[in-house]
């Protein structure tokens, strides 16, 4: 790659300008170039000089050395060195002294090429002639692009084109001479739609039903049905938003409390399809659980002024929601856009508890920027308001109907996700012009007009004809001109790839690391599906207020008539417990605020089982033996135990859940063998119910629900809900230390090495092969090949593929052979790409 000469130096910045000599008198030994003799026209002769050499630091909102060429008034006013243009006296104008280079150590412009003597002569003549300035010309900040709402009318509908997106695009296609290429077939469409809405491959059954559906509107119907899969939708979009909001279950900063997760809030917001304006409000002016985004990431020690939490908040909310890059401006007036240090501090200050002194490239300036939003035309923020009120005001401004930058930014991100490239590029620079302004503006307006319903926007995009066009390769001219010819061929994300491997093999993660309430049904939250609601139990009702320090033994025999497909247990105890299942100790715990989530499946047998728990209520004040020692005591347990089966293609489920209630028996004294099923002992009494998890004094309703809902995900947990591993990292899952709004998708050698010999994928495929073979009893190699093609590629193998794979697998099924066959299939571009 050819190194490009770069004129702008990151470290350089405009210094306040000072007089060349101590006494303020220009050195007369260097004569100034003579003034031009002709009559000067500002627009034709002066404007080009200013634009080429001056306004980068002294215009477009910037005022290096406090000198601004925004208009004649500011120019005549001068900067820190006083007036620099004296109309009628160019020899006495400091500007001329600077551009002529009288003092070699203090020449303007500081960056770029120096003015020629002829140019200096023109400037002199202009000043001598009175420094006349056309009123209609200024060098202020350019008007903000893509900011104000605009709702273009839909063009007339050509024959057969009804969808608004297609109507908007049709004139474009006519102008670009692009013919309709026809639509992809049902299987390709379904795979696309599934992956784009819920991130999963369709199952063979779902695909077959869809393909055989004769309904003309079935594609729209499918998109709507998928958008209605609230939990699956939330699990998929969690990845996108985790990247953008840099939320993760592990990462830097957590060791010192320098970071906070927002997973619970985010998952709930996605599952409920929170209107986007409210979504943004709850992040910008954080509601409980959403603070982490604007809290930022702090490492131990001192932090550079350009990376304080307030500045991180300013940078990140500008980037994610407004498509504005304030990163350069956090340190100095930006060289790449019009943002200034004062803009960045103006926004950061909104979040600051105390006024923030501006720091210019690590040097304190002694100045405080006026508080403001980056687009003050949307409204002001009263600096005298307390912080909470300022945040509320900021959230208001950002989500007001007048701020169509917010809506344009998100619809552009969605378009890019589905079509492979944005209507505006780069996605994080929304000052750029869209290749289809009307389409961008229309989507933004439509979103605002429909209660900021992102699912509506997604549905509109995915039901358009253009979304159903065959995918195309990135145009050869990658850096240059882009013409839309249909969605780009895309690659599965790391999470999509892993989930696809899981769909193919039937093996998923056991439990989520993400902490959220996963009990989402189409009606929103629904907890009534539980046959049992666990309650706190103890030996007497008074235990809520206080029970004597004591050890209590608990027993519950339970009949599980079928081997469970899934079995997990959640338990909390005030103060300590030791849990035995069928005599084997499987867990201990001592903090009821953090209920334990356990894999129960390996410990269960078909038939009668015995759960036995030894609990201890500790004394309230062990250090003061004479004090009252009673303290609250309680035990709460929920076992999620299900048997799933399929009969004639229909899935069914047997619910065998168990929870603490008054059927549990307790005793204060036991003999050896009390954990055995046939232990008799004496004096077993029935538990007393104290109330559900949220009951005082424990009040752990929310964390309990998180744990319970996690138990119910047993063995079906998707890649988005677990921390990154070497495979996910290699496939491009970012470490979420910075905001990431699009991931690189090209395959790399290190990635291929991880896929080829990495332990993580090898283990998945080993388990997957076992599971696949177990799920298909009596299946021969041929059946396995056919089923794998149907699950993984959404189609039957061609006769040639079938013959090849069959020959390779041999006559009898070997796990290693299946494993290798699965590996080969998941390496295929057909598997890894979205066509």
């Amino acid at each position: 790659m050819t190194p490009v000469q770069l004129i702008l130096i990151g470290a350089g910045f405009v210094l306040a300008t000072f007089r060349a000599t101590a006494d303020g008198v220009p050195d007369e030994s260097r004569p100034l170039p003579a003034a031009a003799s002709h009559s000067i026209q500002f627009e034709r002769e002066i404007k080009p000089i200013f634009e080429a050499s001056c306004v980068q630091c002294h215009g477009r909102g910037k005022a290096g050395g406090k000198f601004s060429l925004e208009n004649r008034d500011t120019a005549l006013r001068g900067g820190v060195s006083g007036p620099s243009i004296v109309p009628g006296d160019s020899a006495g104008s400091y500007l001329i002294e600077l551009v002529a280079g009288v003092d070699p150590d203090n020449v303007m412009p500081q960056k770029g090429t120096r003015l020629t003597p002829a140019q200096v002569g023109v400037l002199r003549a202009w000043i001598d002639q009175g420094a006349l300035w056309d009123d209609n010309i200024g060098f202020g900040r350019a008007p903000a692009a893509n900011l104000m709402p605009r709702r273009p009318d839909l063009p007339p509908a050509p024959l057969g084109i009804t969808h608004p997106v297609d109507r908007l695009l049709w004139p474009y296609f006519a102008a670009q001479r692009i013919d309709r290429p026809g639509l992809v077939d049902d299987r390709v469409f379904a795979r696309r739609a599934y992956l784009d809405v819920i991130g999963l491959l369709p199952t063979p059954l779902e695909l077959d039903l869809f393909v055989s559906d004769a309904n003309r509107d079935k594609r729209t119907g499918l998109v709507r049905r998928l958008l209605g899969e609230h939990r699956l939708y939330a699990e998929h979009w969690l990845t996108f938003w985790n990247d953008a909001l840099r939320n993760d279950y592990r990462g830097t900063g957590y060791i010192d409390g320098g970071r906070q997760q927002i997973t619970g809030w985010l998952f709930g917001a996605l599952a409920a399809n929170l209107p986007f304006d409210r979504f943004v409000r709850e992040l910008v002016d954080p509601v409980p659980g959403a603070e982490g985004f604007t809290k930022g990431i702090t490492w131990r020690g001192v932090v550079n002024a350009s990376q304080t939490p307030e500045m991180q908040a300013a940078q990140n909310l500008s980037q994610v929601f407004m498509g504005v890059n304030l990163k350069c401006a956090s340190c100095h007036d930006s060289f790449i856009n019009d943002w200034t240090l004062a803009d960045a501090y103006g926004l950061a200050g909104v979040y600051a508890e105390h006024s923030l002194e501006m720091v210019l490239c690590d040097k304190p300036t002694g100045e405080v920027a006026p508080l403001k939003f980056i687009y003050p035309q949307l409204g002001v923020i009263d600096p005298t308001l307390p912080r909470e009120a300022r945040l509320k005001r900021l959230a208001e401004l950002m989500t007001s109907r007048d701020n169509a930058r917010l809506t344009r930014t998100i619809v552009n991100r969605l378009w890019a996700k589905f079509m492979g490239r944005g209507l505006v590029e780069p996605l994080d620079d929304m000052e750029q012009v869209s290749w289809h302004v009307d389409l961008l503006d229309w989507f933004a307006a439509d979103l605002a007009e429909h209660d900021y319903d992102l699912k509506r926007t997604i549905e509109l995009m995915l039901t358009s004809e253009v979304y159903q066009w065959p995918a195309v390769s990135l145009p050869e001219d990658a850096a240059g001109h882009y013409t839309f010819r249909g969605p780009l061929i895309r690659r599965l994300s790391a999470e999509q790839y892993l989930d696809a491997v899981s769909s193919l093999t039937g093996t998923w993660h056991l439990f989520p690391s993400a902490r959220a309430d996963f009990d989402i049904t189409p009606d929103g939250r629904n907890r009534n599906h539980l046959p049992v609601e666990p309650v706190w139990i103890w030996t007497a009702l008074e235990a809520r207020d206080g029970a004597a320090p004591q050890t209590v033994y608990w027993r519950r025999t339970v009949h599980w008539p079928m081997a469970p497909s899934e079995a997990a247990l959640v338990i909390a105890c005030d103060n300590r417990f030791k849990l035995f299942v069928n005599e084997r100790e499987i867990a201990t715990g001592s903090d009821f605020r953090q209920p334990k989530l356990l894999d129960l499946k390996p410990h269960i047998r078909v038939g009668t089982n015995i759960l036995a728990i030894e609990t201890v209520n500790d004394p309230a004040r062990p250090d003061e033996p004479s004090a009252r020692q009673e303290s609250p005591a309680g035990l709460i347990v929920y076992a999620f135990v299900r048997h799933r089966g399929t009969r004639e293609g229909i899935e069914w489920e047997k619910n065998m859940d168990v929870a603490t209630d008054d059927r549990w028996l307790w005793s204060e004294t036991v003999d050896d063998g009390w954990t055995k099923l046939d232990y008799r002992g004496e004096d077993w009494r029935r538990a007393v119910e104290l109330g559900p998890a949220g009951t005082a004094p424990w009040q752990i309703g929310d964390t309990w629900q998180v744990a319970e809902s996690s138990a119910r995900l047993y063995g079906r947990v998707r890649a988005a809900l677990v921390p990154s591993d070497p495979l996910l990292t290699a496939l491009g899952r970012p470490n979420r230390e910075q905001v990431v709004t699009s991931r690189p998708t090209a395959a790399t050698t290190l990635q291929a090495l991880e896929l080829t010999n990495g332990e993580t994928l090898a283990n998945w495929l080993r388990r997957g092969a076992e599971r696949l073979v177990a799920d298909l009893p009596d299946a021969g190699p041929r059946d396995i090949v056919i089923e794998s093609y149907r699950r993984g590629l959404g189609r039957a193998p061609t006769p040639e593929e079938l013959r090849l794979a069959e020959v390779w697998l041999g006559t009898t099924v070997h796990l290693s052979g299946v494993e290798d066959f699965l590996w080969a299939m998941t390496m295929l571009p057909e598997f890894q790409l979205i066509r």
Partner: protein
Amino acid sequence: VTGHAPLGNDTDPDAMKTKNSWNRRDFLKTASAATLSALAAGYPRALLADEGGDKPEATADTLILLWMAGGMAHTETFDPKRYTPFEPGMSPAALFSTFPTIDTAVDSIKFTAGLEQLASVMDRGALIRSYTAGDLGFILHSRHQYQWHTGYAPPQTVAAPHLGAVVARTLGPLNPVVPAFINIGQRFDVGEGEELKAFHTAGFLGSEYGPFNIPFPDQAADSVRPPAGMSPTRFEDRNRLYRRLLERSPIGEYGGDYQKQSLLRSLDNAHRLLSSPAAKAFDLSLEPLESIRKYVPGYEPGRRFDAALERFGGYEAQTVGRFGLGCLLARRLTEVGARFIEVTTEYIPFLNWDTHENGHTRLVAMKQQIDAPIAQLVRDLEHRGLLDRTLIVVASEFSRDALIEGRPDRKVKDQVEVPDAIHELTHYGMHRHFTDAGCVLLYGGGSRRGYLHGYTAEERPFRTMDNRVVIEDLHATLYRALGISPKLAYEIEQRPFYVTRDGLGQPIRELLVS
């Protein structure tokens, strides 16, 4: 088929020794694949500032960074002060060096005892005694390590690339089948693992240039072998099946899409590495035992280095040899054309060089970890004629002191309680983090021989007195040797990101021959 066999049985030593044995066609193929993926991913473009942008001529092709993770006390290693033996009741203020001083091959340079082998090769290297770590306030090791390895202190607005990634991105692999950035000896599931991950990355340069991680050097061969339990035959069969399915896949009709091409090329590249003769360089079992023992005295094959991470259990002494094998691996990889190799003593909070207690005792073991292998690496590379083009750097994130936390003029929050009088050996050592001095060693690759740069005070505080070296200048020096300008920048979000902080790094000319 089960069983586990190394790739091939060919033990022809010549294949290992010839540095130019890779063929040019492979290189071209790989290069075009890299270009392709770079295009597709929108990987950052290189930018050069117009001033001083001339590409310096390289004096080194390979950089080996030997990382003393956890803070190596200068006064206990390469910058001896008065020897103050342990006396019950001594004041910590009276604690200077806890080791006697020894001579080195250079008259004017002394070390502390326990570094005799390194002392014997001091004439091949340059020693900096004035390295000064960043001023980052309340100390967090991983934060200083991040700054050392990227030149930038976290948090950063963009994901800063590791030194090795910059080298990999800028120079590319030396041998196309050997990953350009190899990282040996660090696990990421230890304390501060997330913070370590944050800089063991190519960051915005793109994962193509990220580290190839080998946490345990004795298991390095596994990283370039088929997955555990898979024989080479089965591995080849599996690959053949993939190719045949690929040929028959209907998607094969869809021509030259870049996504597909990059996918296919990347798998080819991976397969090429896994079946290349260079892969044998990763296999330490092919090294003669007597040669291993020069790096790890008394080494017995099959020895394991997975001692429990026990703070008071003599971890350092139990794992002597792990770093040594890493150095040996670095030598073997250098021979087959590695570009950037880091070998770390491993950062684990409170272990290895991170001595919060028992400093003296543990440093006896730490010196055993490093003394023989580093010296042997220098000798071996010299013997093979590779030292001239290989730059070895020994460095640590900061130093330590018995009393001062941070800098003498800007102390920071203490992390270790130091008693008024030392009665037990536990308290005998450098247990606080000191940022105002530190030692860096350079060998080969165009660095000066037998040269001393900077010095520190003879009385506490043992601070830098002259020729202060900061990270951007140290990096600029390393880059200079590799032929990279300190003002080289990569474009990210339309702005330049310089390989030394803001392009300000200045090579320290005294440290370099040319």
